[in-house]
């Protein structure tokens, strides 16, 4: 017998013997299924705290508080573009001082006589906004403070892959920083540009309506710092409260209503030109 044929014969012979000893394919799949089930169970059992927190959070978001739904209103007629709100926010919430990170900022709109428009917000308006267009060329000019809209149908909450962005029972969109993976998907989904990845925590950050202050019965920092009382925070369920009264009396509007995000931030005297 030639040597190659001989070795093949030997291999075949050996394989036949091993075949008897070895597991069948059925056994193999049985074992694999067992291992997979074990791993799945392990994932659930090993994380009871996290899973429970998730359920609690999901339930909280689905069952909103019937008596309290926080909202916000800004009276643009009163805003003077001083930027105190943005400054106070940065201090209160440890927002980095660099001009790339803002929980709230103020925009200055100038509609020129030639019907073109100029929008500016140098350093988010923190240093106070000054007019850069000559008086003769201006048809009208106004300030628009911006912040998280705490949407009732928030796209950021929808897209968060781990549920780190969630809605509190009283309607404030919040972020669990211990849980956020910093993927930035919510940043992309926010139509209002209100989110950023913090260079300090490497997780997402945005306005929380100063939830930590609200829970102590205090006003948000920006509301407190506003010298003209242009900013109002309150309960949208309190039909006789000052916030609801203001929104109704001034026929307030929201930003980008066509996107159907149901913002809870309302503006008085909001021009159609505001983006």
């Amino acid at each position, binding site marked *: 017998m030639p040597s190659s044929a001989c070795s093949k014969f030997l291999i075949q012979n050996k394989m036949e013997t091993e075949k008897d000893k070895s597991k069948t394919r059925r056994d193999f799949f049985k074992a694999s299924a067992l291992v997979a089930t074990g791993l799945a169970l392990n994932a659930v059992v090993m994380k009871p705290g996290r899973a429970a927190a998730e359920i609690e959070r999901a339930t909280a978001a689905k069952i909103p508080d019937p008596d309290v739904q926080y909202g916000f209103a800004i009276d643009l007629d009163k805003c003077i573009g001083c930027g105190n709100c943005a400054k106070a926010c940065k201090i209160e919430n440890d927002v980095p001082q660099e001009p790339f990170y803002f929980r709230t900022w103020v925009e200055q709109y100038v509609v020129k006589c030639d019907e073109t428009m100029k*929008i500016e917000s140098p350093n988010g308006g923190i240093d106070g906004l000054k007019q850069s267009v000559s008086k003769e060329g201006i048809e009208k000019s106004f300030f628009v403070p911006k912040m998280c809209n705490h949407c009732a149908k928030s796209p950021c909450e929808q897209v968060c892959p781990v549920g780190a962005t969630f809605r509190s029972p009283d309607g404030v969109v919040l972020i669990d920083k211990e849980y956020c993976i910093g993927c930035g998907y919510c940043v992309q989904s926010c139509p209002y540009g209100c989110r950023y990845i913090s260079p300090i925590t490497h997780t997402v950050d945005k306005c929380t309506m100063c939830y930590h202050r609200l829970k102590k019965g205090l006003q948000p920092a920006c509301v407190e710092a506003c010298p003209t009382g242009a900013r109002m925070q309150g309960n949208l369920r309190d039909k006789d409260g000052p916030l609801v009264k203001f929104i109704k009396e001034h026929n307030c509007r929201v930003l980008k209503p066509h996107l159907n995000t149901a913002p809870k931030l309302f503006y008085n005297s909001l021009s159609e030109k505001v983006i």
Partner: protein
Amino acid sequence: MDPNYQHLYDALSKVEGYIYPNEIGLNWGILIVLYPYITGLVAGAFILASLNRVFKVKALRPIYEISLLTSFSFLCVATMPLIAHLGQPLRFYEMMITPHLTSAMAIFAFVYLWYLMAVLLLEIWFDYRKDMVIWSGEKKGVLRLIYKVLTLGVYDTSPKSVAVDERLGYIITVVGIPSAFLLHGYVGFIFGSLKANPWWSSVIMPVVFLFSAMVSGIALVLFIYMIISWIRKQKLDMKCLDSIGKFLFYILIFDFVLELLDTVHRVYTAEESFDIISILMTKLFFTLTIGQLLLGTFIPLLVLGYFQFSKPKDAIRKASYFIISILVLGGIFCMRWNVVIGGQLFSKSFMGFTTYKARLLGAEGLLSSIVIMIIPCLILAALLWLLPPWKKKNMEAY
């Protein structure tokens, strides 16, 4: 000034018009360009393999295993750019343990795992099991042990058992085709479902992604097949090359028509975002007009179209296919770039633009991107050494 913010100050000085202050730095950089690019290569290469296995395109037999192994090699690194770009990369597993079910990104992790574990790994295993049993008998030392481990203890090589392998492999490929569609269609959905961004928000985005994935996967296998044959000093199978060229041509036409439809729709409806998008398209001149359209689509379409009617000499066709594969791969990379980077260059205020300059170093830098693209090539080289398709029992003719 803190040097960590230098690139943001540079971008700030180049802002045009008005953008929201949080939009100066791009959140998704070159790594997120790689993510749809790599998953596209995976899906495309697998679909090419299934053309042979399920749709019985015999001319593609020589590249069947190469396509599968290529697909697997790239799938191994598909999540690397995603994880590397995370602010908290060590928390990535949260996405799988406590996924948020309304998030397209969370569901992708499961689609990915399904594709890796239930489709590609199983299919390669069924394809190679008999050969691994034989090789475990022929080889010695560590290699013998590796093959033995890879057989997972199933040593049965009887014709009946091999027939079962074949049948199960076939079933998995059939399941694999919609899975490949799902994998890459889903990547398209991740972008297409964001209503805040009009450049991304499109109902046909998943379909465009799918066809561009097939185009890039086919071009990659064409490229790899030619390189492997050159390294092995083997003659290229011209029937196979022509067949790949034919499929590339038809799918490239579909891909181009879909993108054209999207553009025509945008121009004709001229919605609110149209003005900013038309300016964006001029800003993307090099990657869109030159890279994606001229080099990545028109030239390959012209050459491949010509080959459908006339067959120049083999040497000319070989050289053309090689160049076309590179052009198409570059074109699809540009397409991913235009989607991911282009979609973040304009403000959601629709009133201005920021700029993006990829950094050389750092987790989100060019170097790490190059490394991520080299790793699958190394995995493929190792797999081809361990599981050489040309040494399979039924592949001796090749």
